[in-house]
């Protein structure tokens, strides 16, 4: 059975790239959310194996959204995805319990490696 991924990103470009990267793998996109608020609202209903969370989005940022999801669902596996992050951002993400970090634009191999580590 494929592992179900919830993609949280306000960028259509990144959503399509993620979908392309997961084709032919053991993962499938179970839901798209365009904002952190949407992800919080949908998480329980989707119940994904893994979440990919953009950091810089309109409205609530991805780390705040991840923190709320993890408070409500401590077993959630969340991987942060961003084109720009510095050490303080990594530290913030690690502190709230994010399981990994992927740079945009990503390669399939790199993405899958982070996913496997996050689910281990």
């Amino acid at each position, binding site marked *: 059975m494929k592992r179900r991924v919830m993609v949280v990103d306000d*960028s*259509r*470009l*990144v959503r*399509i*790239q993620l979908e392309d990267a997961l084709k032919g793998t053991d993962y499938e996109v179970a839901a798209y959310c365009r904002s952190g608020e949407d992800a919080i609202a949908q998480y329980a209903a989707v119940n994904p194996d893994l979440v990919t969370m953009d950091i810089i989005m309109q409205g609530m940022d991805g780390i705040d959204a991840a923190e709320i999801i993890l408070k409500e669902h401590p077993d959630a596996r969340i991987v942060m995805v*961003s*084109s*720009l*992050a*510095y050490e303080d951002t990594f530290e913030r993400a690690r502190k709230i319990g994010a399981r990994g970090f992927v*740079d*945009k*634009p990503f*390669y399939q191999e790199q993405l899958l490696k982070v996913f496997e580590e996050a689910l281990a």
Partner: protein
Amino acid sequence: MNSVLTQEELERILNQAVQDVTERTAGVRLHPEDKSPGEDLCTVQITFDKGFHTSLTLCADTSLLYRMACNTFHEELLEPEDLEEFGKEYFNVLCGRIAGAMFQATQIPAHFNPPVFYHGRYEPEGREIQFVLTYSNEYNEGAQLIHHVPCTGEDEASAERN
């Protein structure tokens, strides 16, 4: 940017980011070439507001940007708003990559405002061109990445304000 890195180092960072991000996001290979884009252009521009007080402008043939957007979105026909959406998202990822590479080289974090899209050529006010990197693809469609710095007077005024 230019006060921390030599122009040569900065050009190398920008060039590597443009070629890598364009191929990875849009499947288009851009080669450095001295060919200016044509008349039908689109411009995407970003201003760095922390760490580096400069701006980057991508000025590309509309046909090139359209080709890149079609490849990325897996569509044969696009609406004008799709082109703008693609241009902004692509440039956002590109500038994120550039800012990351700049940080690796200088340990100075850079932040930038959301990209702005224009039909035609756009020159930011109060800034002058430091250098231009010019590219084309296999269909002879062209693009320029332009590095702007504050005009000398603007730079001094900004320093006084800060």
